[in-house]
């Protein structure tokens, strides 16, 4: 724990398609006045920014884990920190790097090395959200009291996060991600060798090349015009991603995950990421980075539609994702919670969503709980896990008798879970302590009950030890999608 009990030292590490960076930040924690309120992170200050380094690869498919570990070690040393000084944070593997064969062991290794409670994470949606918080787009949405999109264009992917900044849409004061939209479009999808020949074309770029029937081949000197056409086609996809639906079939082909069904009216657009930052100021030599990034940025900049967008300056561009990982990945639970402190920290706890129980009573309360646990068993080998988490969207009215019924149903459903496996119950309403008390009286399983957190099915949780003086635990809600 940091010397100052009111602040947490947080590290963010982004292992991206092209580059790897580290930031160290201080998160200041305050419990708002009023007696009933829970603590919040009120200030996020970046204390150290590591240099931008090329992500080391052993070969096209394998990340150099030792190389990345050495970078992180050097950066922490430069920041004057031992891993034991680091309270929280996240390592995220992003873009094409997330698809490398050893991406998963990489993040877990780096997370374990970097500090006492650093979460490992991967997934385009999370990446989009962190980039948008890191770039300042979420803050702009709050300032504008409106809807702002962050478009993070990197080496391998383009990730859009759309923030709902209206105060009535916030959760515990935090600007909410309304949706994310992700696409396999990035500057590094086409690389050049030292002589200006094409070194490689990644599959998503290949799909565009084929669709447009462009004469581009590996080891050939490309025609500038043809490259520009490819960059324009990519820019079209980025524009379509933001302006749709409807979406062009090519956009659908390159999309990562689901695309939304409804278009959104935006009050602002922020570009971030290694390529995104060039949209505002393209390099004089478009090939300066040895890839298509310069041309892609220029094509986006010159796009007729982009010119009509309400563009906003980012607070961070190149480092948006890592700043997001370092400053915005940690949230705090409610103040009144129920813990067995020696269970903590818990890492990589998969979440299943039980849903809304408000309309259910008696034995019918067990059905959604048992259904959720069955799904959990399908997806995971329970003995491999640290713990499992059940998220209850709504327990119904906060009445003592009602909560007793919820506790009864939980106890009955959890009979199917090995007694040695800790269970985390996450509720949205402020009732974790009383629910914990009711559960404790009913059986003696290892339990953690947390409240005032928003989690979704398929998320993972890392749960840290209580913050000094605040009776609350730091939680990283994340995904592990490789």
């Amino acid at each position, binding site marked *: 724990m940091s010397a100052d009990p009111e602040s947490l030292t947080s590290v963010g590490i982004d292992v991206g398609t092209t580059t790897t960076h580290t930031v160290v930040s201080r998160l200041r924690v305050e419990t708002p006045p009023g007696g009933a309120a829970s603590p919040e992170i009120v200030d996020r200050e970046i204390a150290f920014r590591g240099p931008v380094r090329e992500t080391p690869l052993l070969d096209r498919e394998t990340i150099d884990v030792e190389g990345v570990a050495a970078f992180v070690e050097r950066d922490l040393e430069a920041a004057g920190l031992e891993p034991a000084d680091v309270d929280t944070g996240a390592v995220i593997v992003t873009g094409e790097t997330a698809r490398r064969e050893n991406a998963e062991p990489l993040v877990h290794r780096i997370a374990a090395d970097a500090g006492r409670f650093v979460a490992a994470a991967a997934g385009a949606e999370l990446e989009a959200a962190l980039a948008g918080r890191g770039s300042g787009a979420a803050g702009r949405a709050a300032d504008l009291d409106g809807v702002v999109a962050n478009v993070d264009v990197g080496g391998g992917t383009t990730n859009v996060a759309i923030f709902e900044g209206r105060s009535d849409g916030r959760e515990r004061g935090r600007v909410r991600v309304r949706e994310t939209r992700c696409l396999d479009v990035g500057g590094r999808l086409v690389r050049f060798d030292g002589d200006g020949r094409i070194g490689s074309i990644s599959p998503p770029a290949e799909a565009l090349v084929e669709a447009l029937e462009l004469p581009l081949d590996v080891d050939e000197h490309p025609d500038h015009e043809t490259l520009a056409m490819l960059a324009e086609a990519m820019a079209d996809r980025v524009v379509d991603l933001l302006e749709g639906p409807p979406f062009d079939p090519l956009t659908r082909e390159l999309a990562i995950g689901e695309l939304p069904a409804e278009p959104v009216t935006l009050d602002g657009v922020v570009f971030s990421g290694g390529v995104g930052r060039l949209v505002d100021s393209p390099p004089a030599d478009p090939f300066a980075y040895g890839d298509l990034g310069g041309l892609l940025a220029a094509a986006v900049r010159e796009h007729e539609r982009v010119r009509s967008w309400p563009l906003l300056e980012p607070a961070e561009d190149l480092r948006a994702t890592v700043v997001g990982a370092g400053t915005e990945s940690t949230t705090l639970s409610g103040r009144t919670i129920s813990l067995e402190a020696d269970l903590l920290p818990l890492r990589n706890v998969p979440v299943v969503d039980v849903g809304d129980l408000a309309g259910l009573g008696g034995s019918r309360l067990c059905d959604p709980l048992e259904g959720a646990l069955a799904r959990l068993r399908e997806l995971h080998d329970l003995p491999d896990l640290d713990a499992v988490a059940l998220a209850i969207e709504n327990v119904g009215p906060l009445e003592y008798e009602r909560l007793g019924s919820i506790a009864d149903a939980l106890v009955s459903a959890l009979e199917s879970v090995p007694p040695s496996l800790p269970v985390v119950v996450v509720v949205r*309403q402020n009732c974790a*302590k009383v629910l914990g*008390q009711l559960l404790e009286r009913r059986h003696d399983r290892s339990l953690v009950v947390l409240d005032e957190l928003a989690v979704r099915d398929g998320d993972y949780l890392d749960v840290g030890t209580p913050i000094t003086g605040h009776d609350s635990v730091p939680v990283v809600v994340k995904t592990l999608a490789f």
Partner: protein
Amino acid sequence: MASDSNPDSDTEPLEPTADPDSDADQANEEALRRIADRNPTRLGVGRSGPRPTTDALLEFRADHGVARDAVHSRVSDGLIDDLGLVELRTTVADTDQYLARPDLGRELDADSLERLERECEPAPEVQIVVSDGLSSSAVEANVPQLLPALLDGLEGRDISVGTPVFVEFGRVDVMDAVGEELEADCCVSLIGERPGLRTAESLSAYLVYGPKRGSATAKKSVVSNIHDGGLPPVEAGAELVDLIAEMLAAEASGVDLREDDREFRTE
């Protein structure tokens, strides 16, 4: 307050009349609604001439009426019976005197002292005292949910609880008298807070280790803002269980227990 713009009139309108459906007006309406919605204060209420609109005025009076009623009404006998509370009284004669003489609300009358000895279990670890304080509505709204969570939780920790009492016209410090008489290890006072216009149903819990008449306010711990829109009463019950366990273990309360005891408010 829109003035009609009549093209035939000689007098110029004070303000150009805006088309009510214009984008600018709608954006303005939207902005005003957002200000009103996000603020707990009474913003965006509009005006009639220099005065508030009739709606805003009556809404204010309605909220004040609820707050006044919370101060002046008493907790119902039905609730006291349902919760199985032994009913006691302070030396205060009526509500008017209760408001003007806080000193009289800290001591039990003779009958109550006798009843305490006759009907209440002596020397418990925890003695619970419920008082209407400045809001009977707060007691009615919260104690039925809070008390079972508190009693069950204490039982789960094997902490002995005395016979819970209700003290009419009680101030916070009447728990010192009750606790001292019964020789309780610690006392919890559940008491209605001074009502505001936003809610008249906020309850506070004050706790003291080693209750003794005249003990300083700083020796008391407090959990405040207990109501549905603040700390839910069931959750408050469970929190009090933890706090009581901590007090009994440390044999202390208030500033002796935690230096930075949460924001402390006297009634």
